[in-house]
């Protein structure tokens, strides 16, 4: 059953029956996931080159790897900082089947004598093309607003002055990790829907922070867990993978992820029965230039979805940065794939550690860092 369908089913039939009758609940989310990128193996030129600098349609890619491997990050920009076309847009263009200009330079070695190459590549010409993301699919996220007198342009979108609006970016009750708050079924090796293809969870996501305050039901009230994921770009589709531009912030990758959650027992059914009124997050003032901004208030996802919340006695319009429409599409697609036997469910090879802490970066001496 798709997540929303399951919640309705529990409401009508109760946890015990739902746990008995339903095997799998499919979740989904589609939002901006900055910590994303893709690596490629371009194949060898003749004479061969050990690429030292690489540009894909003008966007630099990291190539401090073997000769013709490179990684392009979603937020990478060209030298002019053109935010309308970054690494994420190059990845989208490749997924759309377009040819991309590959330019590389090198210092030349005895085994790799070539010093430059200027050519075109596409998903058809490269060997590997793999989406490899270090932090996706955040388990809950903040709600952003702005108390200052000027418009702020942030990764949470355009924030109008004097609490002119508030933005949030979790799929709430549809979001994968909010339906499995203690990561019982989602871990290393979990097969997932990724950008329209099938991929895997390969590690905990960076900044994994399970120790945040939780509701009595265990649902994190702040950004908590996240996933590192991998998948073949050749399977993906621009319906679920998009280059995004956040004005004056930069580029990001709009990505769709779906995770099936097996209903192992009543506890799991209870976790998947969670609804938007039982999931909350904190509203932060993004005009506060600090890594630990103060909490203006806590708010539930049903309040956020209603289109308006109250902040300091003011009615403030809300915007989601996460597409409800696409999240539903993903949950539904995944459900159909499972029913047809096209998507196999994997038990995690290893579960995530609940002991991870999220450490800050301070300016420190060599001794203090030891």
């Amino acid at each position, binding site marked *: 059953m798709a997540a929303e369908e399951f919640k309705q089913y529990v409401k009508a039939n109760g946890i015990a029956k739902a746990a008995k009758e339903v095997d799998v609940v499919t979740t989904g989310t*589609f*939002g*901006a996931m900055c910590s994303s990128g893709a690596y490629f193996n371009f194949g060898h030129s003749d004479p061969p080159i050990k690429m030292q600098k690489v540009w894909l349609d003008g966007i630099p890619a990291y190539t401090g790897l073997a000769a013709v491997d490179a990684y392009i990050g979603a937020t990478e920009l060209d030298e002019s900082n053109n935010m*309308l076309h970054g690494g994420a847009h190059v990845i989208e263009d490749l997924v759309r089947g377009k040819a991309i200009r590959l330019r590389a330079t090198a210092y030349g070695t005895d085994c790799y004598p070539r010093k430059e190459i200027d050519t075109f590549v596409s998903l058809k010409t490269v060997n590997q093309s793999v989406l490899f993301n270090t932090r996706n699919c955040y388990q809950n996220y903040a709600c952003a607003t702005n108390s200052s007198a000027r418009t702020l342009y942030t990764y949470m*979108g*355009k924030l*109008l002055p004097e609490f*002119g*609006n*508030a*933005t949030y970016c979790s799929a709430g009750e549809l979001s994968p990790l909010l339906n499995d708050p203690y990561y019982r079924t989602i871990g290393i090796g979990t097969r997932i829907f990724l950008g329209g293809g099938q991929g895997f969870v390969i590690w905990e996501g960076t900044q994994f922070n399970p120790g945040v305050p939780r509701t009595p039901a265990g649902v994190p009230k702040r950004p908590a867990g996240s996933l590192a994921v991998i998948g073949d770009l050749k399977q993906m589709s621009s319906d679920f993978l*998009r*280059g*995004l*531009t*956040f*004005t004056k912030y930069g580029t*990001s990758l*709009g990505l769709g992820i779906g995770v099936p959650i097996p209903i192992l027992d009543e506890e799991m059914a209870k976790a998947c029965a969670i609804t938007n009124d039982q999931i909350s997050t904190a509203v932060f003032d993004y005009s506060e230039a600090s890594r630990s901004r103060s909490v203006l208030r806590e708010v539930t996802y049903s309040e956020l*979805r209603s*289109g308006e919340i109250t902040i300091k006695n003011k009615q*403030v*319009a*809300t*915007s*989601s*940065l*996460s*597409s*409800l*429409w*696409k*999240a*539903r599409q993903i949950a539904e697609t995944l459900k159909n794939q499972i029913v047809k036997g096209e998507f196999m469910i994997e038990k995690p090879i290893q579960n995530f550690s609940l002991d991870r802490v999220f450490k800050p970066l301070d300016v420190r001496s060599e001794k203090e860092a030891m």
Partner: protein
Amino acid sequence: MKTKVVLNFSPEASNQPITHNLIAKHHLVVNILRAEIDEFGGKMVLELSGKAEDIRKGIDYLKANSVGVRPIKEGVRRDDDVCTHCGMCVSICPTKALTLDVKTGKVTFTEEKCVACGVCIDACPPRAMEILI
């Protein structure tokens, strides 16, 4: 009657009380949707309301004073192939022309409510909104 127009100001015209005259002499209700004008000229997007005859005379007045006038048939356009229906535009749209329909999960764009102010253009992450001026 209501109509939306784009005005192109020459440097001479930008120093004249053009908008004032439209209101005072031609009895039009003028809603300024966008304005970028300095001493070297510029552009303005206006919504003019009034009698058809007054609007016609107002436009003649503009043309006679070296202001280029172009009617807007469509102010803001959404490319439905590009829109991901995230909803970022919903909270910044001052006229609620963009709303999230929780039932369908999609963002609805009601063009009649749009005043072509353009705040949604640079707020849209996949860049689905375009202003036609």
